[in-house]
């Protein structure tokens, strides 16, 4: 039963890839939901869970490109493991510290994906996709943390409007 939430996260990733990815893209900035989900799991769950969820998320996002499936699985798995150890060794109580971890993690993932897919115009894509994509994903993570930590609540929203 403990596996069900993670399967739902994987469905969420698949839904994002198919439906919401295009809708939420701002110019060249794409929300990297797989990396964000792996980093959030690593931030709140155990090490083993982070490793396996990273692997599963990598397999799911590479379903359309079977040749690169292993690389995607490996990258996200190692990303989850690394994020978990960063969380263990550093103090991530602060919201900004968590955001820095997300920004760094997504940036690293975007760069590694560019390297693995052997994209042409690497330097251009580095800032037009990897960097701005990382910033946009961090904004989504910021919203997530604000809701999770109770800074944004339904009552507060109702009071505002």
């Amino acid at each position: 039963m403990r596996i069900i939430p993670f399967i739902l996260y994987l469905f969420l990733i698949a839904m994002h890839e198919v439906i919401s990815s295009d809708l939420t893209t701002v110019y060249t900035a794409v929300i990297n939901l797989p990396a964000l989900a792996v980093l959030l799991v690593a931030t709140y769950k155990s090490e083993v869970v982070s490793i396996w969820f990273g692997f599963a998320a990598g397999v799911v996002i590479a379903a359309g490109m079977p040749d690169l499936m292993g690389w995607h699985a490996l990258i996200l798995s190692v990303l989850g493991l690394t994020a978990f150890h960063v969380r263990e060794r550093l103090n991530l109580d602060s919201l900004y510290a968590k955001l820095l971890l997300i920004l760094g993690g997504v940036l690293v993932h975007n760069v590694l994906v560019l390297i693995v897919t052997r994209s042409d115009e690497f330097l251009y894509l580095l800032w037009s996709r990897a960097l701005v994509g990382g910033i946009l994903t961090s904004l989504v993570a910021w919203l997530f943390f604000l809701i999770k930590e109770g800074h944004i609540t339904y009552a507060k929203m109702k009071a505002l409007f």
Partner: protein
Amino acid sequence: MSNLSYKSIRNAHFAVVLVLAVVLIIGQPAVNGLVSQVILDGFYYPFFHIKKLLTEVKTVSAENDQLRSWVAKSSVELSFLEEAARENIRLRSILGFEQQPGYRLLPATVVSVTGGRMPISATINRGLADSVKVQQPVINQVGLVGRIQEVMPGYAKVQLLTDPLNRVAARVASGREMGIVRYLVSEGMVLDNFPNQGIVRPGDTILSSGLGRVYPPGLKVGTVREIFRPENKPYSEIRLEPAVNFHSLEELFVLMPETQ
């Protein structure tokens, strides 16, 4: 001891993940393809269906808006045409001309088409049961398609204009000079027997003339693409662009006489 055990478990899990990833990296394309297919079937296809539905809803909505404006425009044009038709009947009766028969449209769906690179006949889902008869004209929303060649109880065969044996008496919409439209495999649709001194320009519309009494007058057949006027011959060679795309026939209408 507990810490050591935890690290061993962690290392074991990571080793398994590493092995699986390496298997996928260096593995056979068939293995990766199978995994990919399972993931696509399990995780992606429900969302592909939802996306397809959303796209269709969006398309249908836009198409509906377009059709509404088309219907509004057409109803205005129809009221003008009905008035013109009434005037035409009145003037014809004053002059003692024979009245033109009216037609109603019988919708039909194309079941199959036959022919080589260019289809020459189509089978529709209307037949004797719908009072379809041989020689009745068949049109679609853009122009003349052909005529009924053979009728069976539930089906009918349509001889398309692309059949080299099918000919249509036609005239230029603006100049009123007449000729015969036919389809040549080597040249495509042509307007034959058109006098060299006749007035016709590229882009002119060619309509059925009503002569021959198979096709009623005024049905769009095509537009003039190229004109050759050989000096030593009495007739021009006129090539046409068919009004109908014979490669994408779907919904057709059989023109049924009003009395039927």
